[in-house]
């Protein structure tokens, strides 16, 4: 680790490896409400159970909060980014979640948050809840649906766009203690949060359950990555020493590879600077040997 050729930040060595990411389909929607609290509540419900495509079918999170002058109806709101492995999966997930989490939330409205040719239904599907009392309104060339509900009307844009995006950018923080790596994670996700067009879909932006493809049990598509489980030291070969006590991974989905690279750079810098070499043993990244994803984010190039 004392090698001069080793890149380090605040004394934390950065492993010469790469994060492997995949092509995904993404969309962006805007949820507005009477107050930011309601918008936030709807956003949190809408993005719940949206951490990984492995079992959720979708990865999504609140991208950022929006002031009244940034939303179509002048009310406060949140922007949500959603990523899935296919457009079909997005088309399946978004209307179902919108129907149960946004339509149901008091005072909310739902709008498209991105432009593009390929479309995903929003109001186009949800309007049937109006049972014939729904009203279509074309304003400024966009079609909206007004669905009568108990607090007035649920206003919902006809559809939103879906675009090509990238999912699965990541880096792993190898910590000397659970406290230090958790603090480093907090710093990293806080640094990534302001970047537009990226999300960290796991709870709090980090995950502890780094996975490998497949399992000894048939039918499981992913299982724990024992190589990175410190409690299995001595039982399975591991690429780090005994000083590593806990590892957390930050997974990043973005609207473009450039956004992910930027998020990785800021996140790694923030994590290393937050706890230094006293907290982190090193930083590495997850990949599958470069065989599965076509986007490779080499840590040293990114930094």
């Amino acid at each position, binding site marked *: 680790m004392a090698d001069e050729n080793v890149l380090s930040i605040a004394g934390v060595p950065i492993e010469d490896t790469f994060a492997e990411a995949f092509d995904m389909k993404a969309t962006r929607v805007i949820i507005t409400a009477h107050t930011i609290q309601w918008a936030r509540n709807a956003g949190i419900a809408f993005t719940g159970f949206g951490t990984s495509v492995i079992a959720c079918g979708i990865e999504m999170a609140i991208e950022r909060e929006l002031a009244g002058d940034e939303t179509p109806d002048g*009310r406060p709101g949140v922007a949500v980014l959603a990523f899935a492995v296919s457009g079909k999966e997005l088309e399946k997930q978004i209307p179902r979640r919108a129907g149960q989490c946004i339509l149901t939330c008091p005072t909310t*409205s739902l709008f498209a948050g991105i432009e593009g040719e390929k479309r995903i239904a929003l109001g186009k599907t949800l309007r049937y809840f109006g049972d014939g009392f729904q009203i*279509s309104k074309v304003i400024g060339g966009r079609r909206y649906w*007004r669905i009568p509900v108990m607090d*007035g009307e649920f*206003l919902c844009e006809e559809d939103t766009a879906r675009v090509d995006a990238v999912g699965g950018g990541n880096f792993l923080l190898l910590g000397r203690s659970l406290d230090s790596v958790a603090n480093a994670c907090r710093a990293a996700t806080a640094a990534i949060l302001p970047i537009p067009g990226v999300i960290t879909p796991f709870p709090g932006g980090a995950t502890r359950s780094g996975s490998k493809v497949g399992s000894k049990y048939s039918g499981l598509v992913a299982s724990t990555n024992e190589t990175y489980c410190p409690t299995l030291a001595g039982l399975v070969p591991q690429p780090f020493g005994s000083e590593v006590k806990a590892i957390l991974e930050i997974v990043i989905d973005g609207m473009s590879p450039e956004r992910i690279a930027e998020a990785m750079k800021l996140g790694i810098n923030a994590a290393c600077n937050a706890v230094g070499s006293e907290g982190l043993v090193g930083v590495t990244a997850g990949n599958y040997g470069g065989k599965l994803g076509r986007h490779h984010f080499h840590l040293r190039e990114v930094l």
Partner: protein
Amino acid sequence: MPGWELRLIATYAPALDGSLLSQLETIEQEKDVGLIELPSRNAVHSRVLGDLFMIKRRADTRIVISGDCSFLHRIAHRWTSRSLTIEGDVGAGLGIQMRGGQLDVYGNAMDDLGCQMRGGVIQVKGNVGNFLGGPMPGRRSGMSGGRVIVFGNAGHHAGYRMRRGTVIINGNCGVAVASDMVAGTVVVRGTVGDHVAAGMKRGTLVVDKRTFLQPIRFSQPRLERLSVMRLLESDLQNDVPEIARAMRFPISRSLGDLSAGGRGEVWGIEHPS
């Protein structure tokens, strides 16, 4: 595509069908412009454009017609994309079945303006006749898209059988505005005549609450503040800022025409200044 300037030189002309003027969108040769036919109903008085207008190629891509063209009907029939400016009055059926582009009239327009139009924008600085945005004779559906902005007054039956799109009337309008309306939005800043929204099925009519009597065919008005009003506010901001501003306040909203089983809505604006 070249721009054209057409200046009326004839002092008198019979009523002529100007629908072939839409060829101006695609014609490239000046000599071809002069040969555009302007048929009359009985064919006896038919003319070509060169007989009535002095034609000049413009440096920009705009098409400008100047002079009193009230004898020319159905101008910009099925207009698709270009910008046409008319400095003077126009006949009936301006922008009939229009699909896109923009028409600006610095004068008055006769009946059937924007009849069955599907897209684009028409702005009339003067007054317009009856059946603004209505259907063509014998047809069921009125305009189904686009935007018409009238800076003066409108005649009777504005928005009759309208299916989609937006009509904004800055002045007053005659009887039966938005009658038999199926969808879309009609905004009237001035006064409205009797039989407001008679037979209205769906759609939205925005009027000054003080200037019309609530028809019994509509539900009792309720003061409401809906999200869609904020969207309409930003949509109307440039054309009728006073009405757009009024949309920030609760609006008196009633539904109908109940006698026709309709679910349209009339918004009575509280504070247009």
